[in-house]
Structures are given as structure tokens and as C-alpha cells.
């Protein structure tokens, strides 16, 4: 980091504002994409009235959430009831800060990395932040003072703690291969090709089991179908956010989508080569193409999320727990041992 301090601060502020704006827009439009795609899967149109293709639907939803009555039930534990959506939201938005979106760009002679901050323990930082995100859900369930909310919160914390282990272990394989916690270094090592045409991504570099373990654990971490037991509407009302209304409810919703995007970014960076992709055209296009490839990969990942949501039914709770502990965890450990042996060989 050899930038002068004022320029460093200015660049950081500008980057933070842009990333936050893009992230919030992406959250809004992944909700739109989800409604649209799930609509088509179920043979209906999805949002189509507000704007062309229903593209202004997120704006309408946002306005609706702001103007709805914000009800705080009388029996809740008020401080934590108010804090829980904020906790969920803060941790969901913070983890994007160490995600690199592309290589450095050069502005006025200064090389500025396309990332809010490049820390050399980037991956651990993301794991730490996501592990703190459990509190939002758990405290929301507890402070609502409602049996359905409490059950939802308990399920959420048990599920997230269980699958976090498999998630962490599935990433260790990639770490052994790259020998670094820095997301930028991990991506840099995935440039180039095998045999001239297969990209040198970790997914093709022996980590496909690691990727599938990561994928399944990530679905559970973000409480998405088929692992959305914390908010199973058939048995728990709406789970941990039963008692929440208006913008507080929207905060949980946005946190879930922000987590989805973070998990998609992480999968792209660790297993699918980050911003690497074919580069061609004039210099400006060459500078923008890496960010484009990164975005395309993340959107594919989010589409996969929506596809699975439209396809699979929800698991039973005991199936969820035995799958996580008796199948996914041993598989992750086996993958870890195999990778270690292959690297030392």
C-alpha cells in the first residue's frame, strides 16, 4: 500500500460508497430475479406490472416496506428486539469489504486495487463475520418471546453452527493449494489454462468435492431452501421473524440476500477463478472485462440458488442434522486429507 494517505482515504471512501450502492442494488434485483425465475418455474409471470418486465418492482417493495406500520408487539424484550435486525444487517453488509472484484486499476498514476481493503487474512475475516451473523437470527428468535420465533432461532443457531464446520473445512483444501489467506493471492494463482483450454480454476484443479461441500454448506448457512428450517412456514409461522413487520422484517430479508451474494462471491473467488476470463478488445474494455466476468459468475451462482429453491422440497430437521454431521463433515475431512496428500506428493 504505497499510496499517499489522503488519496488512500479518498479512494477507500469512494470505493466503500460504490460497493455499498452496488450491493444494495444487487440485493434488490436478486429479489426481483428470484420472483421472476421462480414464477417462470411455476408457470406464471412473476412481477410484470411495475415498469418494463416488472423492473421497478424492488422500488415499489422498498417504498411499501418504509410506509407500512412498524409494529412492536408489547410482550417482546425491547432492546434486543430492536437490535437483532441491525445485527443481522451490519454483519451481512460488512463481509463484502474484503471481496476483490478485479485487478488494480490505474487512476492518475496511482494503482488502486478493486477491493475495499486487502487484508492478508481476508478469508478468515469473512468466516469470522459470518459466524457473528448468527446472533441476529438467534436474538430475533429469543427476544420476540414467541414459541415459534424461539424454535426458529434455536434451529437457526444449531444449523448454522453445524454447517459452519463443514463450510470451513471445505475451504481448507483451497487454502492448502494456494498457501495463502489473501483472496487476491488465491485468485491470482488461478490464472492460465490446463492443456491449453481448461481454465486453471480450483474447481478443475482437484477441488470439485470441496466445491460441492461448500455449495451445500453455503445453502444451509444462508438458510435457503432446502435448508430453510428456521423459517419453515408450514410448522413455525414464519420462524424467527414472525413478530417483525415493515422495515425490520425487510432488514432480515436483505441480510439473507446479502449473505447469498457474499457466498456467491466467495465461491467465484475460491473455486471459479474470480475475475479471470477471456480478455479482448480495446484497452478500456480490457480493463472492464474482469469485473464483468466476476459479475457473470456471481449471477450464475445466484441463479443456481433460485433454481434450487424452485425445485427442491424442504428437508426434515433430523435429516438436516444427520446429513450435516454424518455425511458432509466426513466428506469435507476426507477432501482435506486427500488434498494435503496430493500437495505434499
Amino acid at each position, binding site marked *: 500500500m504505497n499510496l499517499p494517505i489522503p488519496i488512500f482515504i479518498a479512494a477507500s471512501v469512494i470505493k466503500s460508497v460504490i460497493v455499498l450502492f452496488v450491493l444494495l442494488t444487487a440485493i434488490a434485483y436478486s429479489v426481483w430475479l428470484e420472483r421472476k425465475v421462480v414464477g417462470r418455474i411455476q408457470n406464471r409471470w412473476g412481477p410484470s406490472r411495475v415498469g418494463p418486465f416488472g423492473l421497478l418492482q424492488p422500488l415499489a417493495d422498498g417504498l411499501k416496506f418504509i410506509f407500512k406500520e412498524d409494529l412492536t408487539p408489547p410482550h417482546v424484550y425491547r432492546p434486543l428486539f430492536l437490535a437483532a435486525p441491525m445485527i443481522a444487517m451490519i454483519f451481512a453488509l460488512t463481509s463484502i469489504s474484503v471481496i476483490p472484484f478485479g485487478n488494480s486499476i490505474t487512476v492518475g498514476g496511482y494503482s488502486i486495487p478493486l477491493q475495499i481493503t486487502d487484508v492478508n*487474512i481476508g478469508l478468515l475475516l469473512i*468466516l469470522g*463475520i459470518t459466524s457473528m451473523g448468527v446472533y441476529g437470527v438467534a436474538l430475533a428468535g429469543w427476544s420476540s418471546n414467541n414459541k415459534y420465533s*424461539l424454535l426458529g432461532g434455536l434451529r437457526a*443457531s444449531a444449523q448454522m453452527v453445524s454447517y*459452519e464446520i463443514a463450510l470451513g473445512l471445505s475451504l481448507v483444501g483451497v487454502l492448502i493449494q494456494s498457501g495463502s489467506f489473501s483472496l487476491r493471492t488465491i485468485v491470482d494463482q488461478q490464472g492460465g489454462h490446463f492443456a491449453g483450454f481448461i481454465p486453471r480454476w480450483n474447481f478443475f484443479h482437484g477441488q470439485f468435492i470441496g466445491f460441492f461441500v461448500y455449495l451445500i454448506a453455503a445453502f444451509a448457512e444462508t438458510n435457503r431452501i432446502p435448508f430453510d428450517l428456521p423459517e419453515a412456514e408450514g410448522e413455525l409461522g414464519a420462524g424467527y421473524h414472525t413478530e417483525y413487520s415493515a422495515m425490520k422484517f425487510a432488514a432480515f430479508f436483505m441480510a439473507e440476500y446479502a449473505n447469498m451474494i457474499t457466498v456467491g462471491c466467495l465461491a467465484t473467488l475460491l473455486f471459479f477463478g474470480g475475475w479471470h476470463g477471456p480478455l479482448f478488445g480495446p484497452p478500456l474494455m480490457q480493463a472492464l472485462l474482469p469485473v464483468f466476468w466476476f459479475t457473470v459468475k456471481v449471477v450464475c451462482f445466484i441463479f443456481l440458488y433460485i433454481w434450487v429453491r424452485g425445485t427442491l422440497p424442504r428437508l426434515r430437521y433430523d435429516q438436516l442434522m444427520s446429513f450435516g454431521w454424518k455425511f458432509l463433515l466426513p466428506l469435507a475431512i476426507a477432501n482435506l486429507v486427500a488434498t494435503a496428500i496430493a500437495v505434499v506428493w
Partner: protein
Amino acid sequence: MSLHLILFLLFGAICVAGAVNLLVQRHPINSALSLIAVMAALAGEYLLLGAEFVAAIQVIVYAGAIMVLFVFVIMLLNAGEEEETKGSRVAILFGVPGVLTGAVLTGWVVLRHSGTEPVPIGALPGPPTEIAHLLFHDFLLPFEVTSVLVLIAIMGAVVLATKPEATERKAR
């Protein structure tokens, strides 16, 4: 006053305030949350020392995993507010001398080592590679012995948690 000192004092203040709040709060969940604040502030202090790996592990393991289990148990038992007692005689008999001894010992250690140089940033082994070298090379035996200790604790917990009916059913 440098930024470093300001941050050190800030995290230190959060730490101490969280620790005091932990004792003062009546409701177990508030105490648990104060403990999380203490853990997170400690991670900040580690970061100031340049030990970024230890800081990340502090957040993941203590603030993330262990405290989630604390909160989980409190939620599961639905523990209520604690009752106030009039104070036991044992507490006064042993507690007050204990606190005094502890205070004197701490003061003595601090005074005795007051001449030592402060630790500059990055003086401690921070990067994961160095920590790994320490753990798996220089201190391999103590590290492995600790892991066996943890394993024994886990097995003890499993034995204690197993319901007697379940073992009987298996025996038949």
C-alpha cells in the same frame, strides 16, 4: 496522542465496560452479550499488536462459536432473571481476602515490570505461517497433548449427556 494509543484505550474501555456489565446485568442473555463484546474488543487489541491471525481466530472461535453455544443454552433453558440473595458468609470469608490478594499480586507484577519496553506493532508473530511453524514445529508436543485433553473433555461430555435409557435399549 497517536491513533494507535486512542484505539488501544477505546478497545480497552469496551473490554472493561463489558466485563463490568457482565457482572451487573441480571438477565443471563445480557451477560452473555456483554461477554461477546469483551471477546470482540480483545480481538481488536490483538489486531493492534499485529497478531491478525490470533484476532481472527478469537472472533471465529470465541465470539462466534463458543458464545453462540452460550446463547443457545440460555435460549433453550429459557433462563429467567436471577434472584438476589443476601450474600453468603463463605463469600465474605474467602472472597474479600481473595480479591485483596489478587489485587496486591497484580500491582506487584505491574510495578516490578514497569521498566520494560512497550511492545511495538508487529513485534509478535502475526502471520499464519509463523503461527503454524510455532504450533506444528517448535511446540508440537504441547499442542498435541492439548488436543488429547480436548478430546477427553468431549468424550466426558458425551458420556454425561447420554441418557441411561438409550444405553439400556442398546444393551438389550
